[in-house]
């Protein structure tokens, strides 16, 4: 299953929201772990997503040292990002609820 662009942004935001500051590789691993091979992700797109989120001001970036002693850029969710995450989660749940209901009614003859 391919990942939609907007969905990826939400996933990255959610990951940072729940896990605290992470670097790009860490985010990719976390998404891999959560999705359990259901989603096929071109991991490069995570970086595009991170750039987009930075432009919106929802996450911030700073340099740090990773667990294996490499210099790495860590991304953290901002206050605006948390607000956005709440709204988006809300939206997502509402829409997925609507779609789920739609699909259920469609299945019934």
């Amino acid at each position, binding site marked *: 299953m391919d990942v939609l662009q907007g969905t990826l942004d939400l996933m990255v935001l959610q990951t940072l929201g729940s896990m605290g500051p992470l*670097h*790009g*590789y860490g985010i*990719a691993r976390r998404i891999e772990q959560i999705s359990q091979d259901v989603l096929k992700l*071109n*991991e*490069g*797109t995570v*970086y*595009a997503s991170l*750039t*987009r989120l*930075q*432009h919106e*001001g929802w996450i911030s970036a700073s340099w740090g040292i990773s667990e294996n002693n*490499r*210099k*790495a*850029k860590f991304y953290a969710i901002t206050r605006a990002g948390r607000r956005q995450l709440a709204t988006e989660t809300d939206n997502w749940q509402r829409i997925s609820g609507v779609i789920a209901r739609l699909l259920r009614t469609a299945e019934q003859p």
Partner: protein
Amino acid sequence: MWATLITWCSRLGFALRRRRLDEETRYEIDTHVDLLVDRYIRSGLTPEEAYVRARRQFGSVTAVRQEISEMNGIQFVDDLRQDLRVAVRALRSAPLVSAIAIVSFTVGIGANSAVFSIVNAVLLKPLPYPDPDRLVLLGYTFSGAAVPLVSETKLNVWKDQAVAWQDIAALRARRVAITLGDQAEQVHALQTNTDFFALFGARAALGRVFTAVEDRPGGDRVVLLSDGFWKRRFGSDPHIIGRSLRIDGTTATIVGVLDGNVDTTIFNVVPDVWIPLQLDPNSTDHPPSLTAAARLRPDATMALAQARARVAGREFHRRFPQASGPQDTFTIVPFQDALVQGIRPSLLVLVGAVVFVLLISCVNVANLMLIRGSVRRQEIAIRTAIGATRRQIVRQLATESLLQAFIGGSLGLAFGEVGVRMLLALNPADLPRIGPDAAAVTIDWRVALFTFLISALAGLVCGVWPAMRLATGDQRLHVGSDGRSGATTRERSLRGLLVVSQMALALVLLVGATLLIRTFVSLKAADRGYDGDRVLTLRAALVDGRFTTTSSVERLVRTTVERVAAIPGVIGAAATRTLPLESDWRTSVSIVDRPLNEPSIVSYRIISPEYFDVLHVPIVQGRALIDGDGPGAPPVAVINQAMARRYWPDGDALNSRLIAFPGLVPDDEPARDIVGIVGNVRDGMPLDQDERPTVYVSLAQLRDRESASQAPAGLAWIIRTRSESAALVRSIEREIGQAGGNSPIADVRSMNQLAARAIAPTAFSMSVLTVFGACALLLAVTGMYGVSAYAVQQRTYEIAVRLAIGAPSHQMRNMVLLEGLKLASCGVALGIPAAIALAGTLSAFLFGVVPHDVPTFAMASLVLSATAFAAVWLPATRASRIDPAKILRGA
């Protein structure tokens, strides 16, 4: 709104840090891929397999980096940078064509920014006074003519009726003799009232300005120094206040030094000293001798002020029924309009002409772009083939022409500025508001913005249109072409059309320039009615109070004439109150026992009897004024032929009597016997087609009152000499100065210099239009050459074939020549009706030549055709020298 702004700022932040961000992304991605590789190696894959796996899992590295980089940049800026890079490369690859385009733009835009900088200084810049929009000039109409001056009586009425205006400033420029120690000097003085300083925001840098008490009749004798005079004569002495100097023989106390920024150039005077006007509220002085301005009250509209002015006019007529007609009224004009009224038409002509220059230069560049474009068809086709959209191609080509336009625009701004300064240094043309040495004509933000805008406009017009044409159509046709066979017939005729329009535009300018040149020549050659060669003029002040009676002035004039005439090398000398070609007085006249139907405004000159003799003005009938026409003798006048013809068509002028200033002066002017008729002297506005009726009266036959009121103006002297040696001039100056009791001398000029000054505005328009005409010719020739040279280049193969099968080479040459001439004659054919239509607008500026002067049109057409012929000669010769063997074998 705020959010958008903040987003944009942060976007800008990313764009600015873009290079570093790109580096960081690269590091992050590399690390990421490395970590993935490590992970797969650890899970047992070979390094190669691990690498392949990691790359697959990551996706395209380049694509991601590109995407992020683009996201961080700003699309518009990136495109611009890219387009500019390509544009610079394109310009460099065709240096000659680019240079011609840039030169065309430089000429077109430079001429425009130069003219605009004059228009800006004269018409657009706000006046340097507080609240300039509410300043108005006071005046009146007299027998239908608008007079921008007021008399003392009128000024008092203006003051009494001041409901719509306040701060009524009145001023009068005059010459005064300043005596400091034993040194006398004639300087410019401005007599002003106290309101002047408030109205024009003039402040004293040292001391104070006049008080209201000092401005009353009989007030203390005080004087303000100008900044320049203070520096020059007193070496910026800070303790000057309270000292005194002698002005026209009376002692006055220095109360202040005015700020150097006080701008009086609009009154055509740069005063050295300022003295109080001390206007008498009960004055009965009617001659209009004052310039008056006021500020509209904040709540008053222009319409209201004008209505109140009419009321004031009626009040004046009630108080002085003799001094104005029932139709005469008071007028109010916005100050800025009043200043530029006279000059606006001639500036508009320049603006019109310069727009033509711009058009021609734009056509030139558009043509070059088309020519270059057809050579670049192949490049464009390939770009299209590898995915460039039509929009991108157009944008690219437009960037190129914009780049050229901006380079040309900047050069033009610089050259235009230098050019306009040189022109104005040679000839300030009596332009108002340009300040001394045209200092006010500068590049300010308006000029810069204007240049930027027309550069952008010209660049776009010249770029977009040809680019649209080039980017249209099936590009596949051109991929394989060598760019030489590309021109279609349609394109060729389009280029021809452009050249034709250039020629037509150039013809219009040439006609305009030639008309003004002919005007200038006729003005110089015009019979002015006097002989101005080796005639010297100068002004002498009447220093002390001795010369306030007619008999004292008469004695002074007689002794001075004798002393000057005794100088070896002097033929004769005459005195006058007003110099010909410099100024004159106007008056109405009435004829005794014969009421006139038409308004009768005539020139009025007060002279000594030698005047006609010295200037070689012929006596046509009767006699000249003589020494015998003195204070006791019957009052007489001499008139000129124009006056005689106008008022005595039956030729019986000599038996009539006239009265000058009827009703305008308290004790009525005497009726004067007309004793002689002299030839007409063109001594007024040089462009006047008709000679002005003139009355001459003797200095010795004025009433004492008049002599007294004219004393401050001093006397002007006209001296005919045998040579123009400097030593002679010096001894004349000395003699006149001594005769007047050390009277200071100023404005020493030859009669011919006065004449040159009088035609300076025409000379200015002429030189500007001539420069424009030359530019137009040059540009049109370049265009013609370009088209023809390109045509030959395109047809090399065809010509080679023709030559190979036996066509004589001169036939090829003539073919090219003929084509060029065809274009030129089409241009002339189109240009002539356009020029006829536009020449009419010049008629007010012409003298001695009609707007539709046939020789002028013939001459301009001939010059244009000849130049066009010269322009195609080179390509034509090249066509005849083509070596068919070389070309055909090469192909």
